[in-house]
Every structure is written in C-alpha cells, then in structure tokens.
C-alpha cells in the first residue's frame, strides 16, 4: 500500500508537475528554489538525525560546492554535470578540514562549523585570483542538454534537482537502514557506551559529515549553474543554513521525506500565500508558523499528517 | 502519617503500580522490600509527585497529597533521598549540600547542617569543591544521602541508600538510620539489603509486580520464609 503511494508521488513529481506547471516560469522557479533548499535540508537532517550533530554551517558546504563547480567549469571547461560532482567532492574535501571539530559536542560543534563557513567566505573574498573576489563569478554555464532535452530551462532544472534529491534520499535511506545507521543513532547521547562495544564513533561521525557535505555541495553547485552567478556573500549566505534548518524541522528532521516536503511547503506557502497577504514583512507570518509548528507538532509536519490520518 | 489508598501509577502506557495501599506511621520506620522491578522506586516517585498518580489517593496526616507539585513537598516537611545518580552533577559537593536546605525555613541553618553532614561523611568534606559529577559512585550516594538530611525533614523517603557503598560505610549508614528514627523522624525506606532493612524497621511491606503482597510488623517477619515465597522466580 505504502509502495503504491510512493509510486504515485514519484509519477506526479516527474510527470504531473512539469506537465501542469511547466509553462508557468514563476511557479517553476519557486519550486526549483524550494528543492535546492530541500536538498540542503536533507543533507542537514542526515547529519542531525544520523550523526546527532546540529550544524549551523552548512552554508560552508553549499558555498564550497558552488565555487568549485563554477571554477572548474568556467576556468577549466569541465562539463557541467562533472562540475556538479566535483562541487560535491570539493565540499567533501572541505569537510575533511573540519574533522577536528568532531571532538566537539552540541552547540560547540554547531558553531565551530559556522566558524568554518565564515572563514571560507572570507577566503572566497580575499583569494581574488581564483574566485574573482567579492565581484564573484558571472556567466557560469547553465545545465547542459541531455538526451536532446535542454536542461537549462525551468523544467529541465526542476527535473535535475528532483533527480539529485531523489538519489540522495535513497542513499540516506540505505545508510539509515544499515547497522551503521543503528550505531549512529546510538551514539547521540552515549558516545562512550558505543565506543566500548567496538564502534569507531569518530570515523562514523566523520563519514556522516562527509556524506552530508557532499550532498550540500552538490546542491550549491546545482544552484550556481542554475542562477549562473556567484559571489561570496551569496554562496556562503547564512540563509543557506537557516532556511534548510527551518524546512527540515518543519517537515520533521527525523524522517527522510520531511526536510524536502518541509522546504516545499514552507517556501511555497511563504512566497505564494503570505507574500500576497503582506507584501513586506511576510516573514512575520512565517515566524509565527514556525512557532506554532514546534508547539503543536514538534516532530514535524509529516508526523502531524500521520496523526490526523489515524484520528 | 502517610497513607496510600488504592494508588495506581506508571509511565505513560506502562502501568506499574496496581492499587497499592500502605501506611507509614509517625515516628516509625516503614520499609518496603521486594524483588527487582516490583515498583518500589515507582512508588516513592509517585508519592513525591514525580510520577503521575492515575487513580487512588495519597494522604499526609489525612490531607490529600495527590496533584501537589513535587516542589511543594518540602513545605509539608517531606524529603526524598533518591539514588546517587540524581545529584547536581554540575555543582560542587558543597553546593549540592546547600541545595538540600533550599527551603526558606531551613536556610538559616545551613552552616550547622553542613558541619553535621561532613561529620557524617568525612569523605564529602575532602571532596567539598569537587564537581558532584566527577564523584565516584559511592561518593555520589553519600552525597545524595547527606543532601536529603540537610532539610531535617519530618518524613524521609529513601531509595536504596546502601547501593554501591562499601561495607564500612553501610554500617555507618544503618547507624544513621537508627539515630534518625530515635530522633522521632518518620522514615519510608526501600532497601535491597532486606536483612538489615528489616532489622531497623518497625513495619515491613513486601511488593511484588506492582502490588503489595504482604504487610507485617517487623518483629513478625521471617526473612528466609519470605525469600522462598516471593523472591525466587
């Protein structure tokens, strides 16, 4: 039964959305933007749920991914799709520099990662020869033509990011279902207890950090090729972590679909409904919604829906 | 003094206590024994309001106690000495003890009571400024005990005070209990060391699977018999 639902959702995502909404540039660009946030949210939630680590610095990975992909495609002429992968790998390598922060816990970890994000932003600003400094990089090549279909349009971008998110969600699910997933869950508040039974918790956490960094990096790279423009303040903007956190927690960060659904709901509601109601200051409503959500359904939107189902 | 009437309590969906009724007489030491998992700790927590009571009534001197928030228990002169894990880990030993006398009516006696506590457990004096979280298991247990006595309560509820204590200290502990009893305190004691618990007790309740299986005055209790009947599974 559940499987049927999933197939239907998939068909709708791949078929109905482009067919019904594909002509409306505005809606499509909102959906793509929401999916980018959803992708970062997924990567954030993976680290939070499996690694037990709350990060305030995912913008670091997003930014590094964006820059790496932009630089290799613009300066070295690497094809865009390879650029996306390299962007992810770049972010992964950036996370290797961060491995020492794995010693830290809770807010200490969260902030240390944020510090890295700041450092990367400043590096991107100061390393002018490579990054173009604060002026950034313009005219980043768009998504290529695949199988005769030009992906650089709204629908193409949508299908690309949808596929990326889907692949990441499946990878996430596989990790979670494995014994590594169980051990990771176990580590959260009882690291010593897991170590003394033979779990190399540092390695596992490190791996999760890298996987998560990779995902956020690909999202950043995708966005760079989608927006075609990059500058430090934008690539390393704090919004690339606050919005995903909001989305993930809103949708339910313990679930896999939650962060993505959360991103879509929050972003679309905000832009389509609240913004029409209150053109400036509509974030006010968004803030209120968040507060209400945490109080009335702290485990997220999906849990809320499920509860309604049973009732 | 303290009376439980058909009390039910548990943790969410898991109900642990099934219609427990018992009485603790003023100035007497009432001990509750029973196999592991019988619900003794749950019972004590229910009295203190740390576990919600879903049915029945708890009375203190005839006055209904259900629903009274835990922090108002001190107003009634009740103190609970929980297991040693429940010390304030991020505070020093001395601050932990001081917290024992938090209630307004005891604050002016802090100095004297501290001195008494250190007298009772010299080890704590040596560890005065150490964070309670870094104490050894036994030291933490002593601290919990000493902290509970800081408020000089009329009704003292104690959960397994001898847990993790070295034999020498266990001896002292039971001497302290004797002294407290002699000082007119009402005590409810849960203790795994049945032999010694029954030896200091006036009345013994035996719990099993969340129910009171037996209520006897201490002098009538035949331990060996009880063990054969109730403890062996």
């Amino acid at each position, binding site marked *: 039964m559940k499987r049927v639902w999933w197939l239907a959702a998939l068909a709708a995502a791949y078929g109905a959305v482009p067919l019904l909404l594909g002509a409306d540039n*505005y809606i499509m660009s909102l959906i793509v933007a929401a999916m980018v946030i959803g992708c970062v949210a997924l990567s954030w939630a993976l680290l939070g749920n499996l690694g037990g680590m709350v990060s305030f610095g995912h913008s670091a990975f997003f930014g590094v991914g964006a820059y790496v992909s932009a630089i290799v495609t613009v300066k070295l002429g690497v094809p865009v799709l390879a650029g996306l992968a390299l962007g992810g790998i770049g972010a992964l390598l950036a996370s290797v520099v961060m491995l020492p922060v794995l010693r830290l816990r809770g807010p200490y970890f969260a902030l240390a990662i944020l510090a890295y994000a700041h450092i990367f932003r*400043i590096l991107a600003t100061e390393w002018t020869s490579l990054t173009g*400094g604060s*002026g*950034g990089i*313009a005219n980043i090549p768009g998504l290529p033509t695949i199988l005769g279909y030009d992906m650089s349009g709204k629908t193409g971008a949508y299908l690309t990011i949808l596929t990326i998110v889907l692949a990441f969600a499946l990878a996430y699910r596989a990790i979670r279902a494995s014994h590594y997933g169980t051990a990771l869950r176990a580590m959260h508040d009882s690291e010593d207890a897991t170590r003394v039974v033979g779990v190399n918790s540092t390695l596992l956490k490190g791996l999760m950090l890298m996987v998560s960094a990779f995902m956020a990096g690909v999202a950043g790279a995708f966005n760079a090729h989608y927006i*075609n*423009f990059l500058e430090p303040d934008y690539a390393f903007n704090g919004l690339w972590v606050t919005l995903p956190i909001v989305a993930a927690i809103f949708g339910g960060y313990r679930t896999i679909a939650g962060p993505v659904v959360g991103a879509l709901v929050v972003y679309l509601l905000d832009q389509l409904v609240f913004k029409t109601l209150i*053109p400036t200051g509509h974030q006010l409503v968004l803030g209120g919604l968040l507060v209400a959500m945490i109080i009335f359904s702290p485990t997220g939107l999906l849990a809320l829906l499920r509860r309604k189902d049973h009732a | 003094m303290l009376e439980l009437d058909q009390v039910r309590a548990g943790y969410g969906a898991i109900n642990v206590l099934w219609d427990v009724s018992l009485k603790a007489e003023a100035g007497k030491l009432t001990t509750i024994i029973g196999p592991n998992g019988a619900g003794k700790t749950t019972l004590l927590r229910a009295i203190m309001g740390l576990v919600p009571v879903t049915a029945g009534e708890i009375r203190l001197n005839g006055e209904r106690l259900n629903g009274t928030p835990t922090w108002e228990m001190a107003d009634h002169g009740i103190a609970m000495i929980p297991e040693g894990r429940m010390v304030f880990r991020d505070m020093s030993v001395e601050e932990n003890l001081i917290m024992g006398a938090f209630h307004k009516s005891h604050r002016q006696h802090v100095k004297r009571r501290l001195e008494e506590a250190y007298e009772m457990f010299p080890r704590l004096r040596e560890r005065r400024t150490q964070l309670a979280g870094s104490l050894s298991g036994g030291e933490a247990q002593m601290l919990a005990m000493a902290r509970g006595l800081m408020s000089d309560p009329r009704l003292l509820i104690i959960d397994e005070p001898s847990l993790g204590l070295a034999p020498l200290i266990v001896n002292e502990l039971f001497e302290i209990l004797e002294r407290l009893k002699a000082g007119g305190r009402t005590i409810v004691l849960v203790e795994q060391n049945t032999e010694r618990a029954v030896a200091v007790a006036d009345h013994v309740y035996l719990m099993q699977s969340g129910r009171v299986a037996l209520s006897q005055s201490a002098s009538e209790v035949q331990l060996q018999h009880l063990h054969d009947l109730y403890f062996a599974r």
Partner: protein
Amino acid sequence: EEFTVGAELPLTGTLARVGSGMQEGVMVAAEVFNKTNGKHKIKIVTIDDESAPAKAVAAVEKLASQGAVAITGGYGSNNISPASDAANKLGLVYITSGGVDDSLVNSGRKNFFRINNTAGYEKAVQGLLADMGVKSVSIVFSTKEATSDLANSVQKVLATKGVKAVTHSFDPAITDFKPIINKIKLQDKSEAILMVGYENDYVGILRAARVLKPPVKAMIGVWSLATPKMASEFPDLMPNVYGTALLPFPAHFDTADGKAFAEAYKALYKKEPDYLGQFGYVQSMLLFEAIARAADKGTVKKGGVAEELRKTDRDTLIGRVQFGANGDNPNFVHRMGQHQGKNIVIVWPKETATGSMVYPGLPW
C-alpha cells in the same frame, strides 16, 4: 492605455534600506508621469526580492506573468545579475541604478540599462581630490563588491596622477574602526581619508576619527553620505564631510522636471527627497517615457521599449543620460557635496557647484 511596470526591489533583508529608498523614487515617477502624460498611464506592481537572488528571479518572472512590460529596480549586483538575466530571457527591459559592477553591462544582456556606474563615481572623487591638491589619501573600504571595485579603481587612477593612496579594506561585519584610523594617524599620515562603504560604516569611521583626530584635512565618502538625513541625524559627525551628492540641500530645483519630482515626493512621503529616490525616479521616468513612445508606435510588445530607451538623450536630475550599446550611461559623472552647517553644498564640478568648499575642513 495603461501599462504595468514591475518594480523588483529589496524591501526586507540586508538591502531593505536602499531598496525602499529607490522604491519611493519609482512611485514618484509613476505619479508624475500619470499626471503629466495625458495619453498613457503607468501602473507599478512592486515585489519584494528580499535581498536574495533566487527571489529576485522569481519576482521578475512573477511580474512578467502579471503582464509587466518592463522592470525597474534591483539593488546589489548579485541580485541584479540573475534578475536581469531572467528579464532578458523573457524579453523584458530591465533598468536600474542599483548596481555599479561592470560585468553587468559587459555580458551581452540586450535589454539591460543602467544610469550610473563606477566610472562616474570615480571621476567625481578623483576630481575633488585634484581640486584639493591632495598628495596622499588613505582609502578605507568595505570588502563588498561595489565598494572594493570603486576603491580599487580610484586607487589606480590616483597612482597614475602621482597621488599616494594607501588602502584599508575592512570586513562589513566590523564595528570598531579605531584600530584602522589609528593606523592612518600614526602610519599613513595621509592628507585625506576616503571612505567607500555604507551609512553604518561612515558613522563608525567618522566616530573613530572624531575620537582619534588623525591629522587629515578632509573626510570624503561616496554614496549616502552627503544627505540631509545624515546631517540631521548625526549633527556632530557630518560637518565639513564630503560625499557624492546629486543635489544641494536645501534643494532648489531649477528644471520643471526637478520641481515636479520634488513636489510629488514631498506630497507622497512628507520628507525631503534623497539620492536614492532621485536615481529611482530618473531611471523609471526614462523608462516610462520610452514606453509611451513605443506605445505610440505600437511596438511595446515587439521590443520597442528597448529600442526607444536606446534613443534616450535627455537632461535629468542626474545630468545628461544616453545609453551605449551595452546599456550603460557613458555620460554619468557624479557630483561631490559637502556638509556645511545644516546644508549640503555642491563643491564639484565647478560648473554645477553651489558654493566653495571648506578645505581643510573636518567634523572636529
């Protein structure tokens, strides 16, 4: 005939302040246009881009779907770049004064226009320094894109003129400027300090300078410094400070256009117009006029607006405006003003000066 023009502007987020300033100009332009042009009407639909590129793109797309025939607005090159790309793809004209980055006009957008640029600022600053006869300058600038571009190009030009220019870039997050000013005071020993930043930076720098009193002869800044608002809000910091200014204060508008603008502005917003409003007004007015001309020819939907804009040659509040093939306004030269008492006096260039400069002149 009524035409919808989209205004894509940051009304919230980090650029909210400048965005709302420009919006005022846009609204005034529509008001004036609708009053004076009997034939056509302009309706403005504003969408807040929240200072974020993706939302700027979405805003442009939404405006297009609501029937906008052109876009006016945009602030910050990082928002303008993708937003104008989107407009370009949709075949809409995009006109702005909110981004001075040169890559905006150098990457082949066919429908992109802007009325100001780095070069215009640079000429003004450098002209003022030349008038002063300053031989050494310390340039304090924010590492943001527009500011560092301007600072670096001013430094280059000055170097060719034999003026010693020392630069101090600062992170936008910085709040205490005393250590920088102290370096200028004890190490650079320059004759003037040039500040390239935003309002909050100026206040910080001027405060630090007022405390440390470096032995300079002039404090010079660029946009949003020589404004009546700054004069009234920071009476202790502003005296004798120089900054780019379109108009003196109290403003006396000689041209009919200027008078219309000032009246409408005061009627709508109950305050003195500032430079943001003027830029917004000029860019929008030029746009509306082009739309009107295209409408008369019936080419609005056929790329006529861009065509008409390209033909623009007109004196405006910011001087003569023409558009080059890349959409840039080659005539743009800013003016320099100086806070004198409660007034702002235009002191450069000579032709438009309303008074002479007080030099040396410092706030302290």
